[in-house]
């Protein structure tokens, strides 16, 4: 009996030695694999808000379907059921499932109802994994600003791309214990890591108004494209930026390249008559002309080098103010010739032509203007009327904002704040970048001139009831890429202005590319400006300036 007991204890001792010493490393690794579960920390991109806190981009938890080919029974019945649930052809599903392997995706980020349908099928060898999906609840709204991400939440366009390092965060791994039944014990660690949130300067309401109106204009004039930007001329905050055609960032894979172009900053065009601001303010600043200086444009044409440039309508003797008001090419060239090419170039550069505005969106181009030493004999005439120079809509809007705000060049921006998940403000855009480029006196004089453009000039269709609008029309020929010459059919129609003229709440540019039927900025773009401005002023609760007191509303609070 004693021998048996001793022998038993000895056997036990040997077994323990084998388990605890000889095979310790191997067995403890195996034990770890069995009872330690490693999970990835779910990374969530920060949310993008408009200036009023409305969500423009957020995250959803959706389930992605995967297959374990080794455990999946590849028969017609299973494939048929799956194809019905996914609304896809059986052949498409078959191509995704190899004969061997441990893991393969079938479909990423399914809608909840589709995931439930597949779960109800109870097909062995299929599993689900939670993944974050970036969702844009407003659809196409502000798509060129907000941007989009790919299927793995990698940034592709817009703010998503430009501020990717703030929006995303690092993940990691969480180790938690699980029991023999597979139940997980709490690790006490937060399994979600959130990126920083971004607040834009965009207003959803204003953005919607701008998009709606330029879309209507595109349809009406059968245009190839249209862009519009609304900006606070004092701070550079962009309140709305829209391009048509547009795309839905929720289906970025189906969008075509030309729909994703942010023409407002990536496409240049010859500004035409809207560029007369350069010679105009140059002449005033250099005291070459006053608003009442006279220019004889009765010939209706002027020779510059070997080229003759005509006025659209014949005028007689015009004042400086009337040259801008009636957009006389001959008058503008006369002013330009008086100013000289060096000073035209100087004021064009002061207005920001040929340089990026520094807007916080990807893909901005600088436009161009050749330095005076590269000008030909006709350049002084062409550039005075906005040809042989290329600008983006944002650049020319910024230039006009300098008139609106009393002479400062502001830095346009769309990001207002970056806020950490804990609520701490990491970045706030305080516009320190304001450079005075013209005197307040010149700005004031030119503002009056721009008012006259709308009151009795080419921009009459931009006028709105109850407020004065200051602005300028533009009509420019496009270059035909085949012939490399100015096209006779393709034009760019534009209107830039600000309202109310004396105390502007916003500056707005409307550009319509290749309108059909009419080409003039005063006919095509000005009414769009008017319609947007009317609705925007109402949305912003800005009362009319001309209100007689009997229509005043008294509200008790």
């Amino acid at each position: 009996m004693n021998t048996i007991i001793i022998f038993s204890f000895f056997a036990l001792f040997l077994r323990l030695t084998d388990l605890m010493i000889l095979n310790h490393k191997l067995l403890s690794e195996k034990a770890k694999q069995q009872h330690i579960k490693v999970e990835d920390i779910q990374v969530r991109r920060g949310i993008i808000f408009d200036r009023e806190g409305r969500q423009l981009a957020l995250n959803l938890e959706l389930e992605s379907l995967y297959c374990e080919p080794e455990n999946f029974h590849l028969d017609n019945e299973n494939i048929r059921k799956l194809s019905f649930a996914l609304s896809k052809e059986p052949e498409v599903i078959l191509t995704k499932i190899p004969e061997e392997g441990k893991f393969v995706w079938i479909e990423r980020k399914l809608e909840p109802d589709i995931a439930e349908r597949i779960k109800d099928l109870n097909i062995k060898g299929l599993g689900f994994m939670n993944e974050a999906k970036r969702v844009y609840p407003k659809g196409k709204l502000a798509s060129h600003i907000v941007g989009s991400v790919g299927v793995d939440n990698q940034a592709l366009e817009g703010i998503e791309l430009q501020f990717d390092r703030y929006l995303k965060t690092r993940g990691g791994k969480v180790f938690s214990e699980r029991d023999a039944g597979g139940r997980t014990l709490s690790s006490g660690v937060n399994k979600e890591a959130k990126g920083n949130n971004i607040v834009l300067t965009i207003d959803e309401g204003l953005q919607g108004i701008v998009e709606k109106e330029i879309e209507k204009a595109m349809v009406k004039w059968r245009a190839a494209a249209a862009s519009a930007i609304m900006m606070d001329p004092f701070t550079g905050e962009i309140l709305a930026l829209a391009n048509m055609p547009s795309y839905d960032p929720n289906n970025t894979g189906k969008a075509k390249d030309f729909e994703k172009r942010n023409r407002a900053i990536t496409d240049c065009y010859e500004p035409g008559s809207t560029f007369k601001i350069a010679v105009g303010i140059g002449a005033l600043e250099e005291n070459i002309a006053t608003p009442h200086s006279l220019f004889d444009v009765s010939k209706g044409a002027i020779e510059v080098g070997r080229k003759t440039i005509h006025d659209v309508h014949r005028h007689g003797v015009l004042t400086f103010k009337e040259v801008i008001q009636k957009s006389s090419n001959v008058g503008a060239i006369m002013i330009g010739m008086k100013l000289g090419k060096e000073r035209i170039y100087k004021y064009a550069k002061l207005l920001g032509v040929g340089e990026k505005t520094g807007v916080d969106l990807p893909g901005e181009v600088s436009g161009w203007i050749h330095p005076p030493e590269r000008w030909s004999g006709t350049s002084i005439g062409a550039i005075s009327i906005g040809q042989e120079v290329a600008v983006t809509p944002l650049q020319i809007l910024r230039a006009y904002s300098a008139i609106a705000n009393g002479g400062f060049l502001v830095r346009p921006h769309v990001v207002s704040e970056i806020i950490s998940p804990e609520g701490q403000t990491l970045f706030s855009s305080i516009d320190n970048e304001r450079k005075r480029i013209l005197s307040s006196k010149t700005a004031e004089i030119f503002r009056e001139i721009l008012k006259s453009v709308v009151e009795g000039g080419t921009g009459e269709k931009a006028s709105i009831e109850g407020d004065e609008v200051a602005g300028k029309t533009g009509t420019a020929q496009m270059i035909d890429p085949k012939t490399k010459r100015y096209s006779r059919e393709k034009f760019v129609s534009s209107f830039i202005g600000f309202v109310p003229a004396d105390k502007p709440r916003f500056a707005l540019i409307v550009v319509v590319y290749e309108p059909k039927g009419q080409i003039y900025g005063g006919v095509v773009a000005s009414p769009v400006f008017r319609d947007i401005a009317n609705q925007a002023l109402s949305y912003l609760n800005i009362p009319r300036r001309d209100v007689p007191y009997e229509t005043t509303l008294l509200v008790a609070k």
Partner: protein
Amino acid sequence: MIRLGRKKNMMSLIIKPLCIVLLLAGQFSLIWLKSNVLTLEYKIGLLEKMKTEHIKERRLLLADKAGLQSLEKLEASSMENDGFVFPDRVRVIHIKRQRGPLPHKASLEKRQLAGPELW
């Protein structure tokens, strides 16, 4: 001598079982504590799973809400179906209601009479 021996026997009769009981009790209480901790960890694990599900649902609802509150859709449906239009831009003067009689101020400064504020 016999008395001493008896005392010794009595002490060992009490102390030995007491020690064994204490040892066993200590072991069981350790096991009981450990199992309680494990139970709590299970419960917290379950609650965390519930929390994840709730957060998932909440995010779905927030996304739906954001979509439904889209100003573009609201404007289109309210204008088409209910005849809403943008309001006239009349001048609006807001008047604050007077909160009640203000406390009397004893001061050498000129007394300012309380009245409605205009903003």
